[in-house]
């Protein structure tokens, strides 16, 4: 697919995750002329990852390079939405959402509540995140737990091109604010079939990406792939059949889907790139042990980044959760270690 083309209706395409993001933006802009894009370098350059490449040319007057000011970007998106538009803002890297955190938590997430429904904010904030690309400081941080601790905000994270497309379309259509987390390591390394026009339902939730009876591995974004690699290894080398659940919607969590997937398998390992303490894995553990108090097997293990700042360079390999660690944890919860 060339830059900035939507998907041809009816024809399934094989796309990279990055292309799927671009296709979703293209189709969303085609569908609804209230959709506008804004962010640092999203115009002529098409973003540092080229996610918005060609969109400025294709939709003149609807793609805006902004000054280097994240709070301004999020805050202006609030106003653009109130003014009748459907803004899709890019934060160049998720770590820099902290520059705008007050606008996110106090404003974006609370406008409907504060105004008793007088205003609602159909805003999407897209941001690349996650490790593996040897990025500079702050460029790889996983902040999903902090976003999930913010009522009024939805958080989506795709792990495959089909979801990158369908979830982003859903995010843009959502009448409420969505933070859309794009795993940068997967942008070009993952390809897959994308069905044009496939917009995820309003009631989107978890999705089983691999079946298996012995235990459940839970991940989102980049760690869905970590889990899939571990599951493969577990089956091939240890005869352990693990299911892999892609959480997809990190907030509000799809409790029913999560509990259903865990109930039959009883043993669970949660895997995330965010640091361990007060990470989103803890929420999943807390939910499961409460909802499935009689059936769940303890311990539910977490395989996560440790409680230290994201390290530079190659050290990220010692920081990020690996499929080997997931295998070890899985063997432990099935009582084989």
């Amino acid at each position: 697919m060339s830059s900035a083309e939507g998907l041809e209706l009816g024809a399934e395409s094989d796309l990279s995750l990055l292309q799927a993001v671009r296709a979703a933006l293209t189709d969303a802009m085609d569908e609804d002329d209230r959709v506008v894009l804004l962010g640092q370098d999203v115009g002529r350059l098409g973003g540092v990852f080229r996610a918005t490449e060609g969109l400025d040319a294709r939709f003149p007057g609807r793609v805006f390079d902004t000054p280097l000011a994240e709070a301004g970007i999020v805050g202006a998106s609030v106003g653009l939405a109130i003014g009748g538009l459907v803004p899709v803002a890019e934060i160049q890297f998720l770590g820099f959402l902290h520059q705008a955190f007050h606008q996110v938590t106090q404003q974006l997430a609370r406008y409907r509540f504060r105004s008793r429904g007088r205003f609602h904010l159909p805003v999407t904030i897209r941001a690349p995140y996650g490790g593996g690309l040897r990025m500079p400081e702050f460029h790889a941080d996983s902040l999903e737990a902090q976003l999930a601790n913010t009522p009024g905000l939805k958080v989506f994270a795709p792990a495959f091109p089909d979801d990158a497309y369908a979830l982003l379309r859903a995010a843009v259509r959502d009448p409420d604010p969505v933070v859309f987390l794009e795993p940068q390591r997967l942008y070009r390394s993952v390809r897959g079939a994308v069905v044009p026009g496939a917009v995820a339902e309003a009631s989107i939730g978890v999705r089983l990406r691999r079946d298996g009876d012995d235990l459940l591995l839970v991940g989102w974004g980049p760690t869905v792939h970590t889990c899939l690699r571990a599951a493969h290894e577990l089956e091939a080398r240890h005869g352990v059949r693990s299911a892999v659940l892609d959480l997809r919607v990190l907030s509000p969590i799809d409790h029913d889907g999560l509990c259903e997937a865990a109930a039959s398998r009883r043993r669970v390992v949660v895997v995330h790139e965010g640091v361990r303490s007060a990470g989103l894995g803890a929420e999943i553990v807390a939910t499961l042990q409460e909802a499935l108090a009689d059936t769940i097997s303890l311990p539910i293990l977490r395989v996560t980044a440790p409680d230290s700042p994201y390290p530079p360079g190659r050290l990220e390999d010692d920081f990020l959760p690996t499929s080997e660690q997931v295998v070890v944890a899985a063997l432990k919860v099935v009582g084989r270690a």
Partner: protein
Amino acid sequence: MTHDWVPGRAAGDDSDLLQILGPDGQVTRRDLPCPGDDVVREALRLMLLSRALDEKCIRLHRQGRLGLYAPVLGQEAAVVGSHLAIDPAVDWLVPASREQPAMLRHGWPLDRLFASLLGRIEAARIPDDVRMLPRQQAIATQLPHAVGIAWASSIRRREGVTLAYCGDGATSEGDFHEACNLAGVMGVALVLVIINNQYAISTPVSKQTRAPRLADRARGYGFPGVAVDGNDLFAVYEATRQAVERARTGQGPTMIEAVTYRIGFHNTSDNSSLYREPGEVAEARQRDPVARLTTYAVTAGLVDRDTLDAQENEVRAEVDAAFERASSYPAPGPEEAFRHVFAD
């Protein structure tokens, strides 16, 4: 070069401020237009209403019948004078938090304003056809919203300008800067009125910034800024009128600094005698904006003292009645703590 640097005006020297109506109620600048008689009459009514509201709320608070309240006492010319220059039917209002008379004129009914102070949150809802944001409790965060609204108007080619308020304290926040800079870059139809009431809680503007004038900031964003005598309704009105005209004709944003004084406390939980001298407040009372406009109006024969008394009684009655109505609205049930988080 830097050795040419002049640090700016001497403290207390306000001779640079735009002034049309002097402290004695006399017009000092014959070369500039005065607002029409109808505008003056409406201004006076709004200012009296605002005073009546402040009084009522403070009394209610003392009686334990109302929560925290932030009066606009002393700043009425700055708020009313600027708001009178916009048209609520097409223009947006983005308040900071204490600009009650602007909110009322914009179309938020007085009983709903009271309802908000009483925690009757459903009744307090801003009506669908009133183009106004709710009060903002996080200082300066409303400014990027205002820019976004104005920007949306320009993208959608809609008429209507956006009038936003903030305080002197708010100008120190990063959001003020990011908003102003974006407004300049996008050339949006924004009129930003800084109500410089000399204080952010206990912090005097001299500790807030060393800028000679806050309006001096505008140049650094590429649009005009003007500092006006904020106790002079005529100056505030005229500066805003010009700014609105600029905005309506696609000439971009303007920053107006209305230099005034917070005669009252910061809010009902504040004790301002802890940080400012009584003499200072007494002196500020000499520049009372309501008295100034009243003198003008009486001298000009627009009202007489009797009409004024009648009007004061009228606005008091209006305030009392609105409060009674607001009190009759239902208090929110517990379920309201969980509603409106997302669309149903």
